[in-house]
């Protein structure tokens, strides 16, 4: 992994209001509108400093709460390479697939990560290496992988409609 990538580490139950405050839900819809408010009430440094290739580590139930998709859309737009968490809330899980954002459910990797550890992610192999420990994560079922690999559900739907 490139040394320039930053790992952002958060705790359990990171909810949708922390990821993107509800008060902006009906005024910010595009990636450019969403980006400055990402994680605003959780970590004011995130939106300022996040860059493509960064990875988020988190505990259980990441993305719980609202069905608002701005968190998934925004995190994909700023170039988050993957979110590695112990578990994800289900609406967020779908939203991420639909935005083409990679989620990795791997509690062991989250427990193994400490600040400053090197992180190496091999998506093809389904492997995440933290310092010298290798952890495997399951790949998605083919039906779902097709959506993510198309770049998200809208692209997938466009391709399907065009057939």
């Amino acid at each position, binding site marked *: 992994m490139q040394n320039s990538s930053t790992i952002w580490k958060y705790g359990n139950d990171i909810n949708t209001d922390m990821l993107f405050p509800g008060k902006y839900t*009906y005024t910010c819809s595009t990636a450019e509108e969403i980006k400055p408010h990402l994680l605003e009430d959780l970590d004011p440094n995130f939106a300022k400093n996040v860059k493509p290739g960064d990875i988020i580590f988190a505990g259980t139930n990441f993305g719980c709460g609202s069905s608002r998709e701005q968190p998934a859309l925004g995190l994909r737009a700023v170039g988050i390479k993957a979110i590695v968490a112990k578990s994800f809330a289900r609406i967020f899980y779908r939203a991420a697939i639909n935005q083409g954002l990679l989620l990795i459910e791997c509690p062991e990797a989250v427990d193994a990560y400490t600040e400053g550890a090197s992180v190496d992610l091999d998506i093809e192999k389904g492997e995440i290496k933290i310092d010298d420990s290798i952890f495997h994560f399951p790949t998605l079922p083919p039906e779902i992988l097709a959506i993510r690999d198309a770049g998200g559900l809208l692209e997938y*739907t466009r391709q399907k409609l065009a057939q």
Partner: protein
Amino acid sequence: MRKTFAEKLLAIKAGLNEVVPGQIVTVKPEHLLTHDNTAAIIGKIEDELNQYGVVNPALSVIVLDHVVPAANEKTAANHKKIREFVKRHGIKHFYDAGEGICHQVTIEKGLAIPGTIIVGSDSHTCSYGALGVFSTGIDRTEAAALMLTGETWLKVPQSIKITLSGEFKFPVTAKDLVLQIIGDIKADGANYCAVEFHGDIHNLSIEDRITIANMGVEMGAKVAVFPVDELTEEYLEGIDVVRGSYEKIWADADAEYLCELRYDLSKLEPVVAKPHTVDNLAKMEEVEGIPIDQCLVGTCTNGRIGDIEIAATILNGKKVHPDVRLLILPASRSIYNEAIEKGYFKLLSQAGAIILPPGCGPCLGAHMGVLAPGEKCLSTANRNFKGRMGCKEAEIFLASPATVAVSAVEGKITDPRNKV
């Protein structure tokens, strides 16, 4: 045999003999719910809508409720865009600002039919489980794709069985039960799962069931569902849904569950969810006496006539504490009208409450009733996340309508058992 509600319903809907948890199935939901976010949804697929149109004008249920009446130019423009879309594509089920909160309106208009699938770009779409509907929240992008194709995928969930016995002892109500369950199993306790309610269901009104199903998502559930019983059938008949016109799908007695829980309703106590998570449960002794600045009775969780009746009865002849603003937020126009007819709004207004139009606004900090830094709100809503009511330095406590109404008079969190 040995099948859960979710396994049976999804097998039928997917046209398969049987399905097992973890299996991915393709389904065509009967309805797709969207609200003010319809503007953003159609904005994603303008070219496709021009080229292909919507797949079915009867699929969408669109209710303007989140920021109503419009708060500013941007939200007004969103509403206008949605009205134009509705006309252009002949959307059959459209309810404009003032009709109510989408979940209540969908139920009242007879669109939440037992045995059907409803998906909605709102996390509290799980509310219709109260009527035996497989209903769950999705994101905007998925709603956009559904408008074009009418189908989506669902993973067959594992199920959790919660068996209820006995009756509530007022002022303990359904809200106390669901807060207790979430406090026990935590915010991710039912993640990806279907939660089935069994046992003495006949002791729970339809309103109680909606309150409980509504908060299914706060324990992570995909669906939270009740069996269709005589009460359900009577309720549906009252809103012109003919008996026998729907499927009464329910789990087999020997179905397999991920886990089973039991609650004796007569033994429950009033409880409060403390900031900033719904599972941060407290007994009254722990929170009693905390001064509050704002109270909210209403929302899709507790904005039905029974909830307003409780507040009006408690506030009758009393005054809201001078340091408190009490907001009343009915869930629909029909509830609003009934509250006028029954005199509840007069009692509440005379007591010093502020009656708001039906809608979602304050609950998510989108419109009206926003909190200031350092303020505390006691609310009957379903979420108390940091920043939820528009201010990250404010605190939200969740409780039942009885607890909120009693506390509004006292100016501090108060055990309703001592006052009613």
